């Protein structure tokens, strides 16, 4: 009991220990705020990327695509682990505005073409949430009323609208009427140009039927076309139809690794069955990947940045250890007589050491609590603070017209908070260890002799 009483007494009476508390609180505050914001951004980005490609992707990097995809879809749909699967065409096209619309937006650039079947695609991805104007059935998302003779297309929102300072797109109430000419290069199964005798690219005019906001880079580089139209434009129709990818969603409760392993197993079997058939060589380039691997270039950057930040903060934590060490070294030096008296009444070395470690724990716990409460309050108001800074000093943490970030993420991840608090308390215990051991080893006869008084 005396250990706790003395530890509390040291904490309250030794004002120098306030510095340790302050240092711990400051570090916890900064790390808590930064890690919460960073974790929020990473989680948000990963969620958007996950929604963009489903759980698992069977795809080839070649624009030629692969055959027999419909048969493999049937194989997948029989499995209880697979909830939904959707075939996708992916290629590139020159997209150019043509007269006939009512919008001043002009498009003339190479875009990624994504051919989709809306009903199945929306079961696998977040497609239904991306659309801004479709209000009825998702199957009708490629339908438009201003030119019923033309097939519809969906264009990434970044091409059409600007964003305001809060990151929201400035959209007209009525969807703009835009017609675009999409020119693709149809390829044969061998990768040669289909219809090589003709001199004109495979072109078709589409009318804008909706805009898509995925929240990732796709908003600035993609145009969505009806699956059959995209397949035709890319030369993937014919006796053996081809697609570039199969996106799928696993049934609830199926783990990512387990699901992907199952699909890989099915794919290997499927490939073996088809090995002697025409165009089976295209199947060799096909990979089965989880959404994390498929989007590795995007996801890995966010995760690496988070890991780097943790390493840098860990380095800075060393300074907190130094401070606690110095403060305890001072306290032990000043309290040598008290320690001598305690030991002279029979308290062991271990208990003296424990006394100072409890003191260190209290500093860590108090500092962490102050830092955590401060950080929590700061995070609660972080968006208001940013608004105020923007209003008065034109400062935004991220330019919302440039980055697809809405509010600054401020949801508290309790695991992050607990880890930070535990790290702070551990840093205090590490910093206090040597002075505590030194205190435990003090000899009463040395500290209490008259010449020392």
């Amino acid at each position, binding site marked *: 009991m005396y250990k706790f009483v003395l530890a509390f007494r040291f904490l309250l009476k030794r004002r*120098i220990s306030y*510095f340790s508390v*302050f*240092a711990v609180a*400051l*570090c916890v505050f*900064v790390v808590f705020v*930064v890690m919460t914001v960073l974790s929020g951004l990473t989680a948000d980005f990963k969620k958007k990327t996950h929604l963009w490609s489903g759980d698992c992707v069977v795809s080839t990097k*070649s*624009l*030629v695509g692969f055959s027999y995809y419909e048969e493999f879809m049937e194989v997948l749909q029989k499995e209880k682990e697979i909830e939904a699967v959707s075939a996708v065409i992916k290629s*590139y096209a*020159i997209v150019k505005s043509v007269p006939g619309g009512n919008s001043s937006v002009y498009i003339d650039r*190479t875009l990624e073409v994504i051919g989709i079947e809306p009903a199945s695609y929306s079961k696998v991805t977040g497609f239904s949430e991306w659309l801004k104007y479709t209000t009825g059935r998702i199957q009708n998302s490629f339908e438009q009323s201003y030119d019923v003779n033309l097939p519809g297309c969906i264009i990434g929102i970044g091409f059409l609208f600007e964003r305001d300072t809060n990151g929201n797109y400035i959209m007209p109430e009525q969807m703009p009427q835009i017609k675009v000419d999409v*020119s693709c*290069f149809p*390829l044969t*199964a*061998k*990768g*040669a*140009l289909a219809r*090589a005798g*003709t*001199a*004109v*690219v495979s*072109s078709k005019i589409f009318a804008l039927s909706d805009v898509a906001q995925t929240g990732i880079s796709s908003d600035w580089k993609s145009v969505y076309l009806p699956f059959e139209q995209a397949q035709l434009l890319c030369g993937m129709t014919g006796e053996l139809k081809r697609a570039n990818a199969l996106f799928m969603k696993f049934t609830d409760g199926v783990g990512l690794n387990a699901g992907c392993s199952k699909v890989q197993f099915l794919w290997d079997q499927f490939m073996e069955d088809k090995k002697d058939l025409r165009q089976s*060589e*295209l199947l060799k*380039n096909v990979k089965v990947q989880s959404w994390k691997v498929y989007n590795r*270039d*995007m996801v*890995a*950057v966010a995760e*690496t940045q988070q*890991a*780097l930040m943790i390493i*840098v*903060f860990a*380095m*800075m934590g*060393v*300074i*907190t250890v*130094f*401070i606690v*060490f*110095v*403060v305890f*070294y*001072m306290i032990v*030096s000043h309290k040598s007589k008290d320690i001598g008296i305690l030991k002279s009444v029979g308290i062991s070395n271990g208990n003296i050491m424990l006394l100072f470690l409890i003191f260190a724990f209290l500093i860590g716990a108090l500092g962490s609590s102050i830092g955590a409460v401060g950080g929590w309050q700061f995070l609660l108001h972080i968006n208001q603070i940013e608004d105020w800074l923007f209003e008065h000093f034109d400062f935004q*943490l*991220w*330019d919302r*017209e*440039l*980055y697809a970030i809405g509010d600054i993420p401020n949801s508290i991840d309790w695991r992050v908070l607990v880890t930070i608090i535990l790290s702070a308390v551990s840093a205090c215990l590490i910093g206090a260890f040597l002075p505590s051991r030194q205190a435990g080893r003090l000899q009463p006869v040395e500290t209490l002799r008259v010449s020392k008084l």
Partner: protein
Amino acid sequence: MLKLFLWLRYLRKKKIVILCIVAVALSVSLLLVVDSFFTGLIDGLKNSLAAESGDAVAYIYGKPIPQYNAFLGRLEHLEEVDAAAPICTGGGLLWLESGDVREAGIKGIDIEKDSKFINWKNCLLRQKEQVSPLNFTVPGYPDANGVWVGVNIIAEPNERTDKYDVEEIRKLIGKKVVLTTEGFGRKRKVIPLRISDIAFTDTIWGDRTLYVPFEYLFEIQTGITEGKYANFFKLKLNKNYSKQEMQSAVFGVWKTFARENLGWADDDIARMHIDYEEEHSYFVELRKQMAVLLLIFGVICSVVILLVFCIFYMIVETKLKDIAIIKSCGASSTTAALIFTGFGGCIGLTGSGLGIIIGYIIVKNVNILEGWVRVITGIKLWRRSSYLLNYIPNQLNWPDILPITLAAVAGCCAGALIPAIVAAKTRPVDILRYE
């Protein structure tokens, strides 16, 4: 002299001040590394953009000019312009082999003129070691249409190491590829080419571009086959002149050239415009991120002030008798205070010096360190596809060393201030009396 003697003595005898020095060094090196990284990233991207697109682009709207070489020759004689080159860009699909077709950006370049913007010699795999002038000739196929292919079009870096297998890539030189692009009148143009060389540029977008002779691409896009036409020119500005000076000089040359050589009317002459490479908003954001990160780390580093305070307070308490003796010998309170604030400054300087050395070593060897991290942990910190630049910036930002060092010294002096005041207020009569 006395102060210097005492500083050195404390530095030698009081081992605990080493903690201060280490903490200052750690903070200074961290701030320097972050600052150098971001500055290097921004400078690297800006330089690459300037090399690719020039500092400014002069274009003649809707009407290409013949004899562009004569016009460029006149521009290059201007003191305001360091270099000028025609540019022409497009996009298309590149067939590499059966079943393998990739998207590629296409750029038409005049090798000689473009070399004043980009050091092409260093970028090319085959022609790097050759002494002959750079060309699009294909070894073993003298009549073939040669093309330089950005390395990222034909190869993928190793997933683990992010490095290319150069020897495998070298084997692709001379290989037949087929480019499909949109030509004049929206006609599909299918062009058989052979790889003359592989380009390893500094940027990911440069590595994803196909480089063909300027006149060849211009002909494909416009259908103009004779007369050396062009209508876009990138310009490298002489840094000693302003944009306005350059603009009026270029317009002056253009008007004379268009009237005398081309016989153009004023309406056509007015077709020329000059666009400047403005500070991209992405760089503004990078600078902002750098400032925010430095602020966050600066706040954490300010804890060093507390550390200095604690240590100095302890030193002052244990050295009260020494201070009293010094004061009893006639030293003023200011002298006593200066001993400790000066000592704080000393620690700040020593720590900063050490921090600069550590920061320099880290920054200079950052690519090697990143390799070690990959070997030890398996984590690849820098991927060229993600960060746009092909290397981690490894130049120390020397101009920012001074403010960071000054901040460190000021922080240490501030930490030592209260203990110094305590020392100054010491009364020898209280400290040295016999009881």
